[in-house]
C-alpha cells in the first residue's frame, strides 16, 4: 500500500520555553493513539519544537485506510423469519441498523442454534479525509498548562496560534480551528525570514525550513550551541559549564542559535559570586565563564539569529548585565550597613503565612523543633541552635534577597561570614533550604541538617494545620517536595529517628491552628503521618527504585523511621529469592490466618502446654529468640531470617499434626498467644 510522510506544523506566537517540550510530547501521544484507533497505518513518529512551532512528523503513513470485512451476529434464525418466511421486525432492525440487505446474510450454527450472520464491509477511506476530521480535536487537546484567550475567540491556547500547515506527502490536509484554517504556507525565523513560504509537500517543508533560519530539531539546536560554546572556550581561553536546565531553556528560546562571548568590568568580581551569577543565569540566561577555576569577567549568551552584526548584540547584552551588576553592588553595600541581627528585628513584620504569623513566630517554632531533635538524637548542639535560629531568616529583609529571592540562605550565609560567625553557623544558614528541588544536594553539616529538617517540618505541620494541604496537582508550598527533603536528609545523616513518634509529640505545638480549623489532635496527627507515609512510599519507589508490591508493601512504613525502613527495604529486595525468607513468610502467613480474630491469652501459661509438638515449637522458638532479637537490634535482617529459620519446621509440624483449635478454650487461647508471639517477632521485620 502506498505510504507518505505526514507533517503537522502549528505556528504559535512565542511559546513559553518551560512548557514547549511537554506540549510536543502530549501531541505525539494523542496523535499516535488517534491513528491507532482509526486504523491508520503509520511508522516512525517524531516531534520537534521551537519557540514558534510544534511539529509532528510521521515518516510513513498509509495514504488509504483499507476497507474491512467484519462478521456480525444477528438474531437467531427462528426469530428472524415468520411463518411466511418473511423477515421479522428483529431481522429488519438488524439489517437497517447496519445498512445491510438480506443478500449480505448467511446462517451459522452456534452450539446447535442457527443464527443470522452478515458480512459488514467498510469502504476504504482516504487518510487525509479522516485526519481532517480528527485534527481539530487533536490540536485543541494538546496539554495546556496555562492557556490564554485572544482576539474574539472563546477557545484557549498557550499563546495565539498563527498558522497551521498540514500535509500528507504532497496532499494538503485541510481543516479548520476557531482561530485559523490550515494553509500551505509556513513562516521562517521571526526576524530573519518572517514571510510566508509556500510549501508543496512534506519534503519541500523539511528542505525549506533550514533556509529560512529555522533549525527544527531541538537536539540539533542543542548540539549546535554546545559546539559553538566549545569553540568560544578555546578562542577565549575560558571554561563554560553548561548547566543542563539552563541549556534546555535556551534551546527553547531560539530557532537559530548563535553563541557569543560578552564581558563586564572586572571590578564586579569583588562581589560575592551569587550576586554575579544569579542575574546572569536566572535573569539573563547567560552562562558564566571561568578561568583557572575562578569566575572570569566573561559570559556566554545565545542569540536567536545568525552572527550578522553580532557586536551590536554583544554590546547590548553587556550593558544590561552591567546595569544589573551595578544594582547588585548597590544592594549588597546597602545590606552591609546593618548586621543580620538588625535585619532580624524586622522579621515580626514579615508574614510567613497569614494564619501562621510572622517569620519571628515561625522561628520560635523551628527553635522548639530543632531543640527537641537535638535532644532526641543526642547531638549536643544546643548552643549552636540558639545562635543560628534567630539569624536564619534575617536575609529575607536584605536588599539583595529582595531583588534575587532565589539566593535566600546563600546571602544570609555570606553576611554571617562577613560578621565573623563560626563556619558551622554560616553553613547551617545556607543549608536550611536544602534540598531546593528533586535531586538537589542535601545539607552536609549536622547542624544544617537539623535546621533544614526543623524548618521544613514546621512548614508542613503548620500549613497542614491551617488546612493548606496539597490537593491533587496543587501543592503551592511544595510540601510534598519538602517532606521528601526531610526524609532524604534523615537518611543521608543516618539519624535514628522514629519520625512518627516525633511528629506525634510535636502536634500540640500546632493546637491553636488546627483547632481553629475544626480539627482535633488525632485527625491532625493522622493527616501529617499519612502524608509522610505516602511520600516515603513514593520516595522508596521513584527515587530509590524499590518495587511496590515486592518490597515496599511488605514493610511497615508507619514508624517513618527512615534508617530502619531503608535497611529493611534493601534486605527484602535481596531476600525475596531466598528460601529461608520465603519459608519464614509462609509460616508467618499460616499463623496470621489461624490467629486472626481469635481471642488469645494475655499471658502464656507454660502449664497449659501439654502437646508434644506444641512443646517442641515453643522450645525451638525460645532457642532462636535471643539471636533473632539481636539481629533486629543491629538491623541485620538477613541474619534475622537465618536466626529464625530453625524454629519454622516445628511450627509447621504443630500445624500439620494437630488440631490447633483445641476444644479446651483455655488451651486454645494459650496457643493463640504463643503463635502471636512467634508471628509478632517476624513482623518486626516484614508485614
Amino acid at each position: 500500500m502506498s505510504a507518505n510522510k505526514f507533517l503537522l506544523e502549528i505556528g504559535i506566537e512565542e511559546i513559553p520555553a518551560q512548557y514547549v517540550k511537554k506540549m510536543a510530547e502530549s501531541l505525539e501521544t494523542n496523535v499516535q493513539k488517534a491513528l491507532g484507533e482509526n486504523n491508520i497505518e503509520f511508522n516512525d513518529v517524531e516531534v520537534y519544537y521551537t519557540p514558534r512551532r510544534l511539529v509532528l512528523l510521521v515518516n510513513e503513513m498509509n495514504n488509504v485506510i483499507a476497507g474491512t470485512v467484519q462478521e456480525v451476529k444477528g438474531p437467531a434464525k427462528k426469530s428472524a423469519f415468520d411463518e411466511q418466511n418473511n423477515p421479522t421486525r428483529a431481522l429488519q432492525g438488524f439489517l437497517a441498523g447496519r445498512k445491510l440487505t438480506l443478500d449480505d446474510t448467511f446462517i451459522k450454527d452456534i452450539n446447535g442454534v442457527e443464527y443470522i450472520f452478515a458480512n459488514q464491509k467498510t469502504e476504504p477511506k482516504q487518510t487525509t479525509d479522516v485526519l481532517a476530521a480528527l485534527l481539530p480535536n487533536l490540536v485543541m487537546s494538546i496539554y495546556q498548562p496555562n492557556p490564554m484567550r485572544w482576539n474574539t475567540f472563546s477557545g484557549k491556547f498557550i499563546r495565539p496560534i498563527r498558522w497551521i500547515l498540514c500535509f500528507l506527502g504532497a496532499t494538503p490536509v485541510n481543516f479548520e480551528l476557531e482561530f485559523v484554517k490550515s494553509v500551505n504556507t509556513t513562516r521562517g525565523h521571526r526576524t530573519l525570514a518572517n514571510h510566508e513560504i509556500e510549501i508543496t509537500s512534506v519534503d519541500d517543508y523539511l528542505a525549506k525550513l533550514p533556509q529560512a533560519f529555522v533549525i527544527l530539531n531541538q537536539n540539533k539546536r542543542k548540539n549546535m550551541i554546545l559546539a559553538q560554546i566549545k569553540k568560544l572556550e578555546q578562542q577565549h581561553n575560558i571554561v563554560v559549564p553548561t548547566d543542563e536546565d539552563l541549556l534546555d531553556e535556551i534551546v527553547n528560546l531560539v530557532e537559530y542559535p548563535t553563541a557569543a562571548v560578552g564581558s563586564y568590568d572586572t571590578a564586579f568580581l569583588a562581589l560575592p559570586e551569587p550576586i554575579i551569577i544569579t542575574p546572569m543565569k536566572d535573569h539573563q540566561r547567560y552562562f558564566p565563564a571561568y578561568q583557572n577555576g575562578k569566575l572570569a569577567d566573561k559570559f556566554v549568551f545565545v542569540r536567536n539569529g545568525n552572527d550578522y552584526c553580532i557586536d551590536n548584540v554583544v554590546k547590548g547584552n553587556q550593558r544590561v548585565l552591567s546595569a544589573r551588576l551595578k544594582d547588585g553592588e548597590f544592594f549588597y553595600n546597602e545590606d552591609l550597613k546593618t548586621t543580620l541581627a538588625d535585619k532580624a528585628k524586622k522579621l515580626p513584620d514579615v508574614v510567613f503565612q497569614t494564619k501562621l504569623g510572622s517569620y519571628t513566630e515561625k522561628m520560635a517554632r523551628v527553635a522548639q523543633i530543632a531543640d527537641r531533635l537535638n535532644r532526641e538524637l543526642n547531638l549536643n548542639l544546643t548552643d549552636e541552635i540558639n545562635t543560628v535560629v534567630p539569624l536564619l531568616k534575617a536575609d529575607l529583609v536584605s536588599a539583595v534577597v529582595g531583588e534575587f529571592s532565589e539566593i535566600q540562605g546563600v546571602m544570609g550565609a555570606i553576611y554571617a561570614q562577613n560578621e565573623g560567625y563560626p563556619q558551622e553557623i554560616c553553613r547551617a544558614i545556607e543549608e536550611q533550604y536544602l534540598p531546593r528541588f528533586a535531586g538537589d544536594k542535601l545539607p552536609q553539616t549536622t547542624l544544617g541538617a537539623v535546621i533544614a529538617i526543623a524548618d521544613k517540618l514546621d512548614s508542613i505541620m503548620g500549613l497542614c494545620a491551617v488546612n493548606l494541604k496539597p490537593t491533587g496537582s496543587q501543592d503551592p508550598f511544595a510540601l510534598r517536595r519538602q517532606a521528601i527533603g526531610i526524609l532524604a536528609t534523615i537518611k543521608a545523616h543516618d539519624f535514628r529517628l522514629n519520625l512518627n513518634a516525633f511528629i506525634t509529640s510535636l502536634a500540640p505545638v500546632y493546637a491553636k491552628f488546627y483547632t481553629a480549623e475544626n480539627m482535633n489532635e488525632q485527625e491532625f496527627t493522622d493527616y501529617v503521618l499519612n502524608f509522610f507515609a505516602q511520600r516515603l512510599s513514593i520516595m522508596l519507589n521513584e527515587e530509590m527504585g524499590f518495587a511496590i508490591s515486592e518490597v515496599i508493601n511488605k514493610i511497615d512504613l508507619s514508624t517513618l523511621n527512615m534508617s530502619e525502613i531503608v535497611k529493611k527495604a534493601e534486605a527484602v529486595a535481596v531476600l525475596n529469592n531466598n528460601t529461608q525468607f520465603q519459608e519464614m513468610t509462609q509460616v508467618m502467613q499460616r499463623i496470621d490466618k489461624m490467629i486472626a480474630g481469635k481471642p488469645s491469652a494475655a499471658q502464656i501459661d507454660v502449664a497449659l502446654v501439654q502437646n508434644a509438638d506444641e512443646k517442641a515449637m515453643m522450645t525451638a522458638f525460645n532457642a532462636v529468640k535471643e539471636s533473632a532479637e539481636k539481629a533486629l537490634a543491629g538491623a541485620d535482617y538477613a541474619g534475622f531470617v537465618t536466626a529464625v529459620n530453625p524454629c519454622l519446621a516445628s511450627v509447621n509440624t504443630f500445624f500439620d499434626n494437630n488440631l490447633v483449635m483445641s476444644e479446651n478454650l483455655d488451651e486454645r487461647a494459650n496457643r493463640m498467644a504463643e503463635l502471636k508471639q512467634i508471628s509478632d517477632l517476624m513482623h518486626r521485620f516484614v508485614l
Partner: protein
Amino acid sequence: MMNFQELKRKLQDFWSARGCTIGEPYDVEKGAGTMNPLTFFGALGEKPVARAYVEPSRRPADGRYGDNPNRLYQHHQFQVIIKPSPIDIVDTYIESLEYIGFNKNEHDIRFVEDNWESPTLGAFGKGWEVWLDGMEITQFTFFQEIGGMTCKPVTAEITYGLERIAMYLQNVENVYDLQYSDSEKYGEVYHRREFDHSKYCFELCDEKQLLQDFDNYERESKRLVALGNIFTAYDFALKCSHTFNVLDARGAISVTERAHYIARIRGLMREVAKLYLSQEC
C-alpha cells in the same frame, strides 16, 4: 541621533498611521499606563478600541534621589491598546521597532514568557517581556481580566519603556544624560524633580496624613460609585493606589496590612468596572 521627544513622536506617528487614537497622559498620579482610563475602561466591554499615548508612571519605591543611572521615581511608558487583539499584532510591534530605528536583523529580539498581573487593578494577562539584545524594552500582554471582569474580546497591550529604549538608541549609560530635545538633556528636565519626590516618599511624607487621605479617597470613591459617577469614582481609586504606593515606599505598611490595602484598592476598581459595564458608555 534621535532625541527623547522624537522617539515619542515616532511611536505616535507609527500607531496613529495604524488607526490608533492618540491619547494624552492622564493627570492623576499613577504607577502605569494601564491605569489611564483610556486603557482601564478601553479594555472593558465589547466595543473595539485602538489607542496609544505616553504615560508618565510614578513608582515611589524606585525613587533613587536622582543618583541611580537606571532607576527612576517616574519613568515614561508608551502605551498601545488594541481590542480585539489583531492577529498580526506581534508582527506590527516588530515593525514599530524598525520604525524607531532598530533594524531587526542587527539585533536579537526575544519574546520571553511573562504573565503580567496587577493585584490592585484586579487584572492579569498572558504575554511576554520583549528583550532587545538582552534588555527588557516592552511588556506585551493579552488582557484576560481587568477590574475583576473577564476581557472578551481580548485587548492587546503593548507597553514600551521609553527611557530604556532611548538610552539604547542614544548609546548613553545614564538616563540623565539622554538628549530630551535639541536644547535640553533629560537630567535638566527631571533631575531635581526625581530628588524631591524621592526625598518626599522616603523621608518627608506625613504618614498619618496619607493614611487618612487613603481612607478619605476610598470613602469618596465608594460614594461616587453609589451615585453612578464612573470616572470620578475611578479617579479616587487611582488616588488610593498612588497614596498606597507612597506609604509602601516609606515602609509605613507592614506586610499583613499590605495585602489588606491592596484588597481594598482592588475592591474599588472592581466596583467601578462593574458600574462601567452596567452602563457601557
